[in-house]
Protein backbone atom coordinates (compact mmCIF):
# COMPACT_ATOMS: atom_id res chain seq x y z
CA UNK A 1 0.00 0.00 0.00
CA UNK A 2 1.34 3.47 -0.85
CA UNK A 3 1.72 6.09 1.81
CA UNK A 4 0.99 9.79 1.50
CA UNK A 5 2.25 12.27 4.03
CA UNK A 6 -0.11 14.97 5.05
CA UNK A 7 1.69 18.29 5.50
CA UNK A 8 0.37 20.92 7.78
CA UNK A 9 0.03 24.28 6.08
CA UNK A 10 1.09 27.27 8.07
CA UNK A 11 -0.50 30.65 7.99
CA UNK A 12 1.91 33.31 6.65
CA UNK A 13 3.69 35.41 9.23
CA UNK A 14 2.79 39.00 9.62
CA UNK A 15 5.01 41.69 10.97
CA UNK A 16 3.92 45.11 12.04
CA UNK A 17 6.72 47.58 11.84
CA UNK A 18 6.78 51.22 12.71
CA UNK A 19 9.40 52.76 10.38
CA UNK A 20 10.69 55.02 13.12
CA UNK A 21 11.60 51.90 15.08
CA UNK A 22 14.63 51.38 12.83
CA UNK A 23 15.92 54.84 13.66
CA UNK A 24 16.79 53.52 17.10
CA UNK A 25 18.93 50.71 15.66
CA UNK A 26 18.55 47.15 14.34
CA UNK A 27 15.41 45.20 15.26
CA UNK A 28 15.58 41.49 15.98
CA UNK A 29 12.75 39.38 14.52
CA UNK A 30 11.83 36.55 16.87
CA UNK A 31 9.77 33.43 16.31
CA UNK A 32 8.10 32.07 19.38
CA UNK A 33 8.24 28.29 19.51
CA UNK A 34 6.44 27.11 22.59
CA UNK A 35 8.28 28.64 25.47
CA UNK A 36 11.36 29.47 23.40
CA UNK A 37 12.18 32.42 21.20
CA UNK A 38 14.40 32.07 18.16
CA UNK A 39 15.96 34.92 16.18
CA UNK A 40 15.08 34.38 12.55
CA UNK A 41 16.28 37.70 11.20
CA UNK A 42 17.36 41.23 11.93
CA UNK A 43 15.91 44.34 10.35
CA UNK A 44 18.20 47.28 9.73
CA UNK A 45 17.76 50.66 8.14
CA UNK A 46 18.66 51.01 4.42
CA UNK A 47 21.68 53.13 5.38
CA UNK A 48 23.00 50.45 7.71
CA UNK A 49 22.36 47.80 5.08
CA UNK A 50 24.29 49.82 2.49
CA UNK A 51 27.17 50.21 4.95
CA UNK A 52 27.12 46.46 5.61
CA UNK A 53 27.17 45.68 1.86
CA UNK A 54 30.16 47.99 1.40
CA UNK A 55 31.97 46.34 4.33
CA UNK A 56 31.22 42.85 3.01
CA UNK A 57 32.44 43.81 -0.46
CA UNK A 58 35.68 45.19 1.01
CA UNK A 59 36.14 41.99 3.02
CA UNK A 60 35.62 39.82 -0.05
CA UNK A 61 38.08 41.95 -1.99
CA UNK A 62 40.74 41.79 0.70
CA UNK A 63 40.56 38.00 1.15
CA UNK A 64 42.44 37.07 -2.02
CA UNK A 65 44.90 39.89 -1.33
CA UNK A 66 45.64 38.50 2.15
CA UNK A 67 46.10 35.07 0.63
CA UNK A 68 48.37 36.51 -2.05
CA UNK A 69 50.41 38.33 0.60
CA UNK A 70 51.04 35.08 2.43
CA UNK A 71 52.07 33.26 -0.76
CA UNK A 72 54.26 36.23 -1.73
CA UNK A 73 56.04 35.97 1.64
CA UNK A 74 56.92 32.35 0.87
CA UNK A 75 58.48 33.44 -2.42
CA UNK A 76 60.51 36.10 -0.62
CA UNK A 77 61.80 33.43 1.78
CA UNK A 78 62.71 31.23 -1.18
CA UNK A 79 64.65 34.13 -2.76
CA UNK A 80 66.63 34.53 0.47
CA UNK A 81 67.30 30.79 0.66
CA UNK A 82 68.41 30.67 -2.97
CA UNK A 83 70.52 33.84 -2.65
CA UNK A 84 74.05 32.31 -2.86
CA UNK A 85 73.11 30.34 -5.97
CA UNK A 86 71.32 33.31 -7.55
CA UNK A 87 74.30 35.57 -6.99
CA UNK A 88 76.61 33.07 -8.61
CA UNK A 89 74.41 32.49 -11.66
CA UNK A 90 72.41 35.69 -12.22
CA UNK A 91 74.31 38.61 -10.71
CA UNK A 92 72.89 41.91 -11.98
CA UNK A 93 69.90 40.30 -13.65
CA UNK A 94 66.27 40.17 -12.63
CA UNK A 95 64.82 36.85 -11.49
CA UNK A 96 61.24 35.82 -10.77
CA UNK A 97 60.51 33.34 -8.00
CA UNK A 98 57.28 31.37 -8.06
CA UNK A 99 56.54 28.10 -6.30
CA UNK A 100 59.84 28.58 -4.44
CA UNK A 101 61.86 28.28 -7.64
CA UNK A 102 63.22 30.50 -10.40
CA UNK A 103 60.65 30.66 -13.19
CA UNK A 104 62.03 33.55 -15.24
CA UNK A 105 65.36 35.30 -15.68
CA UNK A 106 65.58 38.70 -17.31
CA UNK A 107 67.97 39.73 -20.03
CA UNK A 108 70.75 42.03 -18.78
CA UNK A 109 68.88 45.27 -19.61
CA UNK A 110 65.42 44.15 -18.56
CA UNK A 111 63.59 45.75 -15.65
CA UNK A 112 61.66 44.16 -12.81
CA UNK A 113 58.41 45.25 -14.48
CA UNK A 114 59.44 43.63 -17.81
CA UNK A 115 60.15 40.30 -16.15
CA UNK A 116 57.03 40.43 -13.96
CA UNK A 117 54.94 41.16 -17.05
CA UNK A 118 56.38 38.16 -18.85
CA UNK A 119 55.53 35.93 -15.88
CA UNK A 120 51.96 37.26 -15.81
CA UNK A 121 51.61 36.47 -19.53
CA UNK A 122 53.03 32.97 -19.13
CA UNK A 123 51.68 31.82 -15.75
CA UNK A 124 48.90 34.28 -14.96
CA UNK A 125 48.45 37.00 -12.37
CA UNK A 126 50.00 35.12 -9.47
CA UNK A 127 51.96 36.33 -6.43
CA UNK A 128 55.47 36.19 -7.81
CA UNK A 129 58.56 37.73 -6.25
CA UNK A 130 60.65 39.59 -8.80
CA UNK A 131 63.96 41.09 -7.80
CA UNK A 132 67.27 42.13 -9.26
CA UNK A 133 70.13 40.01 -7.99
CA UNK A 134 72.48 42.64 -6.60
CA UNK A 135 74.47 42.82 -3.40
CA UNK A 136 73.60 46.45 -2.68
CA UNK A 137 69.93 47.18 -3.33
CA UNK A 138 69.18 50.39 -5.14
CA UNK A 139 67.59 53.17 -3.08
CA UNK A 140 64.79 55.05 -4.83
CA UNK A 141 64.27 58.73 -4.10
CA UNK A 142 60.78 60.15 -3.98
CA UNK A 143 61.22 63.60 -2.55
CA UNK A 144 57.75 65.06 -3.14
CA UNK A 145 54.97 63.32 -1.24
CA UNK A 146 54.91 61.61 2.10
CA UNK A 147 55.71 57.92 1.96
CA UNK A 148 53.35 55.14 2.97
CA UNK A 149 54.47 53.94 6.36
CA UNK A 150 54.35 50.18 6.72
Amino acid at each position, binding site marked *: MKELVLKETQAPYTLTLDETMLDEGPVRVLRVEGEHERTIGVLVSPDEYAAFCAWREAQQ*RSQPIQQATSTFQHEVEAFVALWPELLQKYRGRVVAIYGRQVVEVGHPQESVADVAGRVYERIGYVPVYVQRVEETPRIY*RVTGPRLVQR
Partner: protein
Amino acid sequence: MIPYDSSFDPPAPFVEVIVRHPTTGQQHILSAKLDTGADISGIPQSVVGELGLVAVRSVPVAGYDDVHTLLSTYVITLEVVSARFRYLEVVPLPEEYALLGRDVLNYLYARLHGPDLAFDLSSSPL
Protein backbone atom coordinates in the same frame (compact mmCIF):
# COMPACT_ATOMS: atom_id res chain seq x y z
CA MET B 1 48.20 73.63 -22.87
CA ILE B 2 47.09 71.96 -19.66
CA PRO B 3 46.36 74.31 -16.76
CA TYR B 4 48.13 73.78 -13.44
CA ASP B 5 46.06 72.49 -10.56
CA SER B 6 45.47 75.65 -8.55
CA SER B 7 44.14 73.79 -5.54
CA PHE B 8 47.81 73.28 -4.64
CA ASP B 9 49.85 76.09 -3.18
CA PRO B 10 51.84 76.87 -5.24
CA PRO B 11 49.88 75.51 -8.22
CA ALA B 12 51.30 72.30 -9.69
CA PRO B 13 51.32 70.51 -13.05
CA PHE B 14 48.81 67.65 -12.95
CA VAL B 15 47.67 65.49 -15.83
CA GLU B 16 44.94 62.87 -16.13
CA VAL B 17 46.22 59.29 -16.33
CA ILE B 18 44.68 55.86 -16.66
CA VAL B 19 46.01 53.20 -14.32
CA ARG B 20 45.15 49.67 -15.42
CA HIS B 21 45.51 46.26 -13.84
CA PRO B 22 48.26 44.56 -15.90
CA THR B 23 46.19 41.52 -16.83
CA THR B 24 42.48 42.21 -16.28
CA GLY B 25 42.58 45.69 -17.75
CA GLN B 26 40.37 46.99 -14.91
CA GLN B 27 41.08 50.70 -14.85
CA HIS B 28 41.09 53.75 -12.66
CA ILE B 29 41.27 57.30 -14.00
CA LEU B 30 43.00 59.78 -11.76
CA SER B 31 45.10 62.87 -11.62
CA ALA B 32 48.90 62.62 -11.55
CA LYS B 33 51.48 65.18 -10.53
CA LEU B 34 54.60 65.63 -12.64
CA ASP B 35 57.58 65.22 -10.34
CA THR B 36 61.06 65.26 -11.84
CA GLY B 37 62.44 64.73 -8.32
CA ALA B 38 61.03 61.21 -8.12
CA ASP B 39 63.04 58.22 -9.35
CA ILE B 40 59.95 56.04 -9.51
CA SER B 41 56.28 56.74 -10.14
CA GLY B 42 53.56 56.11 -7.59
CA ILE B 43 49.85 55.50 -7.34
CA PRO B 44 47.50 55.95 -4.37
CA GLN B 45 47.44 53.07 -1.91
CA SER B 46 43.65 53.04 -2.32
CA VAL B 47 43.99 52.27 -6.05
CA VAL B 48 46.28 49.33 -5.24
CA GLY B 49 43.43 47.88 -3.16
CA GLU B 50 40.68 48.69 -5.64
CA LEU B 51 42.52 47.03 -8.53
CA GLY B 52 43.52 44.06 -6.36
CA LEU B 53 47.20 44.40 -7.23
CA VAL B 54 49.74 42.02 -5.71
CA ALA B 55 53.25 43.12 -4.82
CA VAL B 56 56.25 42.09 -6.91
CA ARG B 57 58.99 43.10 -4.48
CA SER B 58 59.99 45.63 -1.81
CA VAL B 59 62.43 48.47 -2.39
CA PRO B 60 64.01 51.04 -0.07
CA VAL B 61 62.63 54.49 -0.79
CA ALA B 62 64.04 57.70 0.66
CA GLY B 63 62.23 61.01 1.09
CA TYR B 64 63.52 64.53 1.77
CA ASP B 65 64.76 63.50 5.18
CA ASP B 66 66.81 60.66 3.65
CA VAL B 67 65.05 58.18 5.93
CA HIS B 68 64.66 54.89 4.08
CA THR B 69 61.27 53.22 4.05
CA LEU B 70 60.79 49.74 2.63
CA LEU B 71 57.86 49.87 0.21
CA SER B 72 56.14 47.15 -1.76
CA THR B 73 56.05 47.78 -5.49
CA TYR B 74 53.34 46.85 -7.97
CA VAL B 75 53.25 46.46 -11.73
CA ILE B 76 50.57 48.37 -13.61
CA THR B 77 49.79 49.55 -17.11
CA LEU B 78 49.82 53.34 -17.35
CA GLU B 79 48.39 55.59 -20.00
CA VAL B 80 49.31 59.26 -20.07
CA VAL B 81 48.71 61.67 -22.95
CA SER B 82 49.09 59.35 -25.95
CA ALA B 83 51.78 57.15 -24.35
CA ARG B 84 51.17 53.69 -22.93
CA PHE B 85 53.53 51.99 -20.50
CA ARG B 86 52.61 48.31 -20.74
CA TYR B 87 54.41 47.23 -17.57
CA LEU B 88 55.44 49.90 -15.10
CA GLU B 89 56.66 49.37 -11.55
CA VAL B 90 55.16 51.80 -9.04
CA VAL B 91 55.15 52.43 -5.31
CA PRO B 92 52.03 53.11 -3.21
CA LEU B 93 51.45 56.65 -1.95
CA PRO B 94 49.28 57.97 0.88
CA GLU B 95 47.72 60.54 -1.44
CA GLU B 96 44.64 60.65 -3.66
CA TYR B 97 46.72 61.42 -6.72
CA ALA B 98 49.40 59.58 -8.67
CA LEU B 99 52.94 60.73 -9.20
CA LEU B 100 54.80 60.66 -12.50
CA GLY B 101 58.48 60.27 -11.81
CA ARG B 102 61.41 60.37 -14.19
CA ASP B 103 60.86 56.70 -15.08
CA VAL B 104 57.83 57.96 -17.05
CA LEU B 105 58.71 61.61 -17.73
CA ASN B 106 61.96 60.66 -19.45
CA TYR B 107 59.86 59.17 -22.26
CA LEU B 108 57.77 62.31 -22.69
CA TYR B 109 58.21 65.89 -23.83
CA ALA B 110 57.20 68.45 -21.22
CA ARG B 111 57.28 72.22 -21.33
CA LEU B 112 56.35 74.28 -18.31
CA HIS B 113 54.83 77.72 -18.85
CA GLY B 114 55.24 78.75 -15.23
CA PRO B 115 54.01 82.35 -15.46
CA ASP B 116 50.94 81.13 -17.35
CA LEU B 117 50.35 78.35 -14.79
CA ALA B 118 50.08 75.83 -17.62
CA PHE B 119 52.19 73.17 -19.30
CA ASP B 120 52.44 70.99 -22.39
CA LEU B 121 52.99 67.24 -22.24
CA SER B 122 53.29 64.96 -25.22
CA SER B 123 54.83 61.72 -26.42
CA SER B 124 56.10 63.51 -29.53
CA PRO B 125 58.37 66.58 -29.73
CA LEU B 126 56.61 69.84 -28.87
